[in-house]
């Protein structure tokens, strides 16, 4: 037997002929955390099977075990009626299981053909792979240039590479991990056509997503996970988005409440005037003539597919990259394009960056220390004592930390734990609370609820809206279109470094936004 083939242990009895994969009470523990607790599911031939659940529900852990990147602690995997052990990804591929990852699986400095070659077996000649990749990519309507370096490609194109790479292995079961989270609506439609075609060829697809609408449209079955356990199975087409969401969350998710904008004629608090900036790295985006005016009392949402200049825009507004001209950016009537972060914060602005650990917070420092780090410049009188010595006032920082924790309902262990010990959602709540506690008159947030569970997300969104209604100007950059639609008063779209004119959220449609995301519809 080839050592790369999965170990077939025994034939486990008669199976109905069309069950391709069966998972029987599989369990995986990481220390005390039970990531998968006796999870079972069945995938039949030629179906699209959805795997639903919040972040941290155990979806990724489950598929990693199917793909051989992780080993289960208990339970079994049955493939075409035979119990199998999948020890490595190459075994999974030889068995007929392919996977399209959401992140981190392409090599930026290598070409498309080289990336594909790495995942194919040794029997493939390096020189033929480019040609093969081109053929398969055209066959499935996913055009690719084999010599392009991955680092130069857009996120959508990179996903095409991932899919073509997977298809070249001719898998029977394809696992897709949140494939549409990085795509424009139009790119997603193309993907759905490809998936329908794969299904018609008799392949099965295990589809991880949190976008319930697309699951309802496309998937034949769904398994819902919560806290590592299966909490529901259903046929999505017979369900509503709400009836799918409730078991995922385990509680009824309320809508955020939004009073009408009362101060529609509020003063312009934040102003960007023709902000231009060259791309700082080859894999970044240049900002081109970005104009934006945000008034007191409103939330402006900035939609867009990841990697279209949102992070660069955030850096420009927050002062992490300085503008060339002081008048490019104005806050509360002051030119501050060449003013640093602390200077801008002193003008009453607050910023929440995308990356929680390592950017917004230092992982190995406690919450109160992170609080001082963020605010010692703008609130020196509050936190530092003894004049120019700048000794930290421990009791004040503890009090303020406590206030934030209570205000934002941050769940933590211990009095003042390290930032890295908090879950993503709770850390994000703390970071939001840290900024909101200052009552900023300008707030700019990048991806406020990325990787945050629904309950915490709702809390954060409500806090953002409440801040705006109390007379602050708020900018929310997000890839989550639902979130943008939910909380924004006006919506602008970022595409390839340009920002569209903001439009009223009541009148703009998803189709409009989708076209603008793809770089069309600018005018």
């Amino acid at each position, binding site marked *: 037997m080839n050592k790369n083939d999965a170990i077939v242990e025994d034939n486990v009895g008669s199976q109905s002929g069309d069950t391709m994969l069966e998972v029987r009470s599989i369990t995986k523990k990481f220390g005390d955390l039970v990531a998968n607790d006796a999870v079972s599911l069945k995938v039949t031939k030629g179906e699209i099977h959805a795997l639903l659940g919040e972040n941290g529900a155990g979806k990724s852990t489950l598929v990693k075990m199917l793909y051989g*990147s992780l080993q289960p602690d208990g339970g079994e995997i049955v493939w075409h009626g035979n119990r199998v052990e999948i020890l490595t990804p190459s075994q999974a*591929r030889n068995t007929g299981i392919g996977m399209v990852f959401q992140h981190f699986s392409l090599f930026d*400095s290598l070409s498309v053909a080289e990336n594909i070659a790495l995942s194919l077996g040794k029997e493939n000649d390096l020189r033929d792979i480019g040609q093969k990749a081109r053929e398969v990519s055209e066959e499935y309507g996913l055009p690719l240039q084999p010599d392009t*370096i991955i680092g130069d490609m857009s996120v959508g194109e990179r996903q095409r590479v991932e899919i073509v790479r997977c298809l070249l292995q001719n898998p029977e079961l394809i696992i897709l991990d949140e494939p549409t989270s990085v795509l424009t609506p139009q790119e997603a439609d193309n993907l759905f056509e490809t998936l329908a075609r794969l299904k018609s060829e008799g392949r099965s697809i295990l589809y991880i997503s949190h976008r319930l609408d697309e699951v309802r449209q496309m998937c034949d079955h769904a398994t819902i996970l919560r806290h590592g356990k299966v909490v529901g199975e259903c046929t999505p087409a017979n369900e509503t988005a709400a009836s799918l969401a409730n078991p995922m969350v385990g509680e009824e998710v309320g809508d955020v409440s939004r009073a009408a904008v009362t101060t529609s004629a509020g003063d312009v608090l934040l102003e960007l005037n023709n902000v231009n900036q060259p791309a700082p790295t080859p894999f970044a985006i240049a900002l081109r003539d970005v104009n934006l005016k945000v008034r007191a009392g409103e939330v402006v949402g900035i939609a867009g597919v990841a990697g279209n200049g949102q992070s660069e825009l955030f850096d420009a507004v927050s002062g992490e990259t300085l503008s060339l001209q002081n008048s490019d950016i104005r806050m509360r009537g002051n030119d501050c394009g060449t003013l640093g972060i602390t200077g801008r914060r002193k003008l009453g602005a607050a910023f929440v960056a995308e990356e929680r650990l390592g950017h917004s917070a230092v992982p190995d420092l406690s919450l109160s220390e992170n609080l001082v780090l963020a605010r010692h410049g703008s609130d020196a009188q509050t936190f530092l004592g003894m004049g120019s010595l700048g000794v930290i006032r421990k009791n004040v920082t503890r009090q303020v930390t406590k206030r934030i924790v209570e205000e934002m309902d941050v769940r933590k262990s211990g009095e003042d734990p390290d930032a890295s010990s908090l879950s993503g959602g709770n850390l994000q709540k703390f970071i939001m609370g840290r900024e909101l506690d200052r009552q900023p008159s300008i707030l700019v947030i990048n991806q406020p609820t990325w990787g945050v569970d629904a309950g915490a997300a709702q809390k954060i969104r409500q806090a953002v809206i409440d801040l705006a209604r109390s007379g602050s100007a708020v900018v929310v950059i997000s890839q989550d279109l639902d979130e943008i639609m939910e909380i924004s008063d006006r919506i602008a779209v970022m595409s390839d470094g340009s920002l569209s004119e903001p439009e009223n959220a009541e009148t703009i449609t998803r189709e409009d936004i989708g076209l603008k995301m793809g770089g069309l519809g600018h005018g």
Partner: protein
Amino acid sequence: MLMTEAILLTIFTAATPLMIAALGELVTERSGVLNLGVEGMMIMGAVSGFAVAQLTGSAYLGALGGIAAGALFSLLFAFLTLTLVANQVATGLALTILGLGLSGLIGEGFVGQPGVKMFPIVIPFLSELPLVGKLLFSQDAIFYFSIALLIAINWFLFKTRAGLTLRSVGDNHKSAHSLGIDVIKIRYLAVMFGGACSGLAGAHLALVYVPQWVEGMSAGRGWIALALVVFASWRPFRILVGAYLFGAVTIAQLHIQAIDINSLTFLPSWLFYLAELIKAIPSQFLSSLPYIATIVVLVIISRNRRLTLINTPASLGKGFVPDR
């Protein structure tokens, strides 16, 4: 003419160890491991190469001894940084310090003894070509090997599957792991290859360059080799250019010191003044030229971030711990 030829020959001899050590380190770094212990591995190669040649009487066995010593010594680095995931920078520095000390201890009994010299292999006919004949075709075996090594490494890295796998590990070890590539094993092999090359470079010093054992005889060449890898922006053929450039600088510095300025009075006056000017440059400045050149190149290539990012191994120096 003869004088020029002799000077050129010494440049070749000075460049060969730099090139071999830098090529080895290039392979190591392409796999994502930064081994700053080149100097230490080189001096271990030098003392072992000298000792084996002394004991067996064969310079070739000496070269093999150098290779083995370098590879073994790098195994220590690999174990600490790959298996125990120690910090690569600190471990590399420690390896250099350890190598310098340990080689002194091992070589104590060999100080002052005459060495076994590796004699040139004269290739018939080709060596009689005008100009290049003597330079390229009547050299020692290690020189020929260094050229073959350069071509082989370039071919390996960019034309073979194994080379592609090695580059992928250096670019993104997480992705490589998720494809089922054994990151740790590949890095072990790459580190040991780098060690073997450094060892051979050291043996070259003790068997060809100065056939003798002198404590600390690597004299900073390991650091120059490290700088060369960056200078070459991780491309093998640029190492050839860099090694000969840096070799030439080293030799020029020696010769400039030896020139008697009064013997040049026959030159036209402007040339004479130029020579006087060059001679006025302190030799310390000349010997620091390779490092200055590396900094200049770093500044120049970092102007073009795209090219830098594509050639620089993205996981260079980062430890890798696989998921359970």
